[in-house]
């Protein structure tokens, strides 16, 4: 299941025609409200479909949680029925699903089969770290990616352009875990500047937090920056070819800096915002490998471990969270279009 795919699909469909109807700036608040309500209802439908699909797939996948609880590597020996009964796995599929859905509506996401911790608490304790990692990674990606993309666009078809785009290609193609291990080897083992693994909350110690989160954020951010740089370059090139930039702005005698920063960049921002917004959503559940390498207690590592032991409610909880993050980011991206581009209409 790719919650982002479904979210992105209907996000694009409802995306906004240009040049018709009242703009929000001109008193279209009702239209905006209708749009938001419609999107919210869509979001609920998407989440419900997600829950049903994932729940069904989990129950169709071989692997018995009860067996894995008693089992260990040497295999199960006994006491399985008692555990299945206690976990509710002996009930028919539809009963299990309705019971889960009922709990979900009441805000009860169930408990881990293994640790007996409430899934909500597990997610609540993991989410802040994942959000911080995603935010810092994205910040690094934007700081590196946007200026690089602009520079490459302005110097298009020069050695600079080709050099930067080659680095970007390298960044997109390079496996994240490999970069993570190289960063560790250089900056932790050899230079000793950063701790190798682990996480400290910023509430405890901001300096320690920064030292712990920098390497994983760079490992993720570098690949993302490559994507953003390529997107920034191509969007900007597209705009720079338009008549209002290529002819009008120059004819008005505007300086190249004003042309790029005030006129071209603002118009090239839409695809960039889309990429950045969806990247953030993808990072909520998509930093699994980096979380594993740096032994970070995030949502991604929670999910991967839960899958490996068929901890159904934890898997469900993680996927509901990831799906919700994708739906929310799609919505925010769409809403942000109106802020960036006044021609956008909410029909």
């Amino acid at each position, binding site marked *: 299941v790719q919650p982002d795919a479904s979210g992105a699909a209907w996000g694009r469909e409802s995306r906004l025609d240009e040049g018709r109807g009242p703009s929000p700036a001109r008193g279209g608040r009702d239209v905006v409200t209708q749009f938001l309500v419609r999107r919210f209802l869509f979001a609920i439908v998407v989440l419900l479909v997600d829950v049903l699909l994932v729940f069904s797939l989990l129950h169709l*996948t*071989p*692997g*018995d949680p009860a*067996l*894995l*609880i*008693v*089992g*260990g*590597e*040497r*295999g*199960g*020996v*006994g*006491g*399985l029925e*008692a*555990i299945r009964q*206690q976990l509710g796995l002996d009930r028919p599929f539809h009963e299990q699903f309705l019971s889960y859905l009922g709990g979900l509506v009441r805000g009860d996401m169930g408990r*881990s*089969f*293994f*640790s*007996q*911790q409430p899934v909500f608490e*597990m997610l609540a*304790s993991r989410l802040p770290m994942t959000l911080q990692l995603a935010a810092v990674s994205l910040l690094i990606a934007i700081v590196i990616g946007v200026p690089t993309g602009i520079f490459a666009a302005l110097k298009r078809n020069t050695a600079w352009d080709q050099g930067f785009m080659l680095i970007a290609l390298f960044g997109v193609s390079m496996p994240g*875990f490999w970069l993570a*291990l190289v960063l*560790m*080897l250089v900056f*932790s*083992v050899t230079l*000793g500047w950063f*701790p*190798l*693994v*682990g996480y400290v909350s910023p509430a405890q110690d901001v300096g320690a937090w920064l030292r712990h989160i920098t390497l994983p954020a760079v490992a993720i951010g570098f690949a993302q920056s490559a994507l953003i740089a390529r997107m920034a370059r191509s969007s900007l090139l597209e705009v720079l070819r338009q008549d209002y930039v290529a002819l009008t702005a120059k004819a008005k005698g505007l300086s190249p800096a004003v042309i790029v920063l005030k006129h071209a960049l603002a118009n090239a921002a839409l695809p960039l915002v889309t990429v950045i917004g969806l990247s953030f959503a993808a990072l909520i559940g998509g930093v699994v490998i980096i979380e*594993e*390498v*740096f*032994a*970070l*207690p995030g949502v991604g*590592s*929670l999910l991967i*471990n839960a899958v*490996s*032991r*068929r*901890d159904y409610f934890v898997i469900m909880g993680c996927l509901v969270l990831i799906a919700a993050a994708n739906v929310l980011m799609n919505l925010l991206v769409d809403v942000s279009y109106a802020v960036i581009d006044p021609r956008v209409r909410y029909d």
Partner: protein
Amino acid sequence: VRRSRFSSWIAGASLLLAALSGIAGAQDEPKYGGTFTFAVATTPPSLDWHATSAKAVQLYGGMYIWESLFALDEALLPRPMLVEDWEVGADGLEWTFTLRQGVPFHNGKEMTSEDVVASMERWLAVSPMASTMERVERVEAVDDYTVRFVLSEPLAPLPYLLAAETAQAVIMPKELAEGAGPGALTEFIGTGPYRLVEWVTDRSITLDRFEDYAARDEDWGGVAGRKDAYLDTIVFRSIPESEVRLAGLETGEFQASQPLPADYFDALERAPNAEPVIVEFDLKPVIYFSMEGIMSDPLMRKAIRAAIDAEEVMFAATGDERFYDLNPDQLWYRFQAFWSDTGAEVYNQADPELAMQLAREAGYDGQPIRFLASSTQYHHRQPAIIIAEQLQDAGFNITFDLRDWPTVSQLQNTDPTAWDFTYIRTGLMMPSEIEFVRLFGFDSPETQEALEVIFEEVEFEALFEAMEEFKREVIVEQVPWYTFGDMFALRGVTTDVRGLQDLYSHPLWGVWLE
């Protein structure tokens, strides 16, 4: 009173781990304090030791938090832990245990017989190993410090079973044990030398010294006897990447890492602040045969056995010849008292011609043979690939079914028609565990007979002879499984660590930092 008779059969078993358990740096004076961070591949998803047989529950939490009535010493023999003394009735049907007095739980309450009764009742209800004690009819409190086990039939290895480390029958406060179903413990309170401070699922387990711990005086090694908690804090960290487990030793963030791939041995030798330790005890690679299809014929099982080159498989499993022992005994490690070379003639035959001859006698004419193995478990994938290749080369038509561990585990346990033979890792620590040959459907009258002897017999010599008979009749002739050899593990430790035993379970009491 049969205590002395029981002691005699365990006393006969004395050839064991002594060579492995030399205590490093004994000349140094122990120091209190410090945090010891142990990097492991994965911390357990549950800490309910009663209800799960996962080794990680014991190694990374359980054995520090809790204690049982008995514990295994460095030679894998049971020694009293929470028990002071014990007696066995003349008919062998009543065991009376006198508990140690003044042993506090981490919540401050003193352990008494009501806690033992409640804990044993919970264990009998939720433990995957409960069937080993199905002869226990009831456990009752005689007085505050005396507990009686009433049996339906004699159960000679009871102290052994109480010390067994798989889903151990640990003692917890009555209030927590009562009514807690499998996996439903809400608090983790025991009498052990360390108490649980924090548990981040799949990431870390943090334990602090229990200042009021009531230590025994005896120095028995292993996980038995005296436990000196020198370290203030122990942290087990789940570090899935082995490269990172190694790197953390070099940066000093970890004091020990295990498991490590054998090919890190040289890197550890070169590291200025860390060193390698070969731990000569790990689970053994083994294949089990399904009794539902083509492998139900013992001739076919003998044919597969004949084709296997065990040395090649062990090398694939470890990657280094220092990390395995071509042990012909299909049951016991070489250091165990029951070890013998009975059956050596059918071990590591590597004879494809004999294999095909036996297969033809069994009527085999090229039908597919399904080999089920895990792609995700440590030390499973590589040896399984080699086994499949060897059998294919010998002329068997092997269908290699490589899946993730949960799927493999379910198929092994619930659907013996879905595979013909399967790979797993196991290791027997006590006589009653020969029952493991029956794990996936194999059984025979001779196996039943051997188990009966184990449950009744207290004399070591008679027990040894019964094991030999079992090897000749069942292991050699009926081939319930095939073990490839003994596997060793690599541990890395920093050079400031003192007192760490070279035991597979690496207890961290008695350990200090220089």
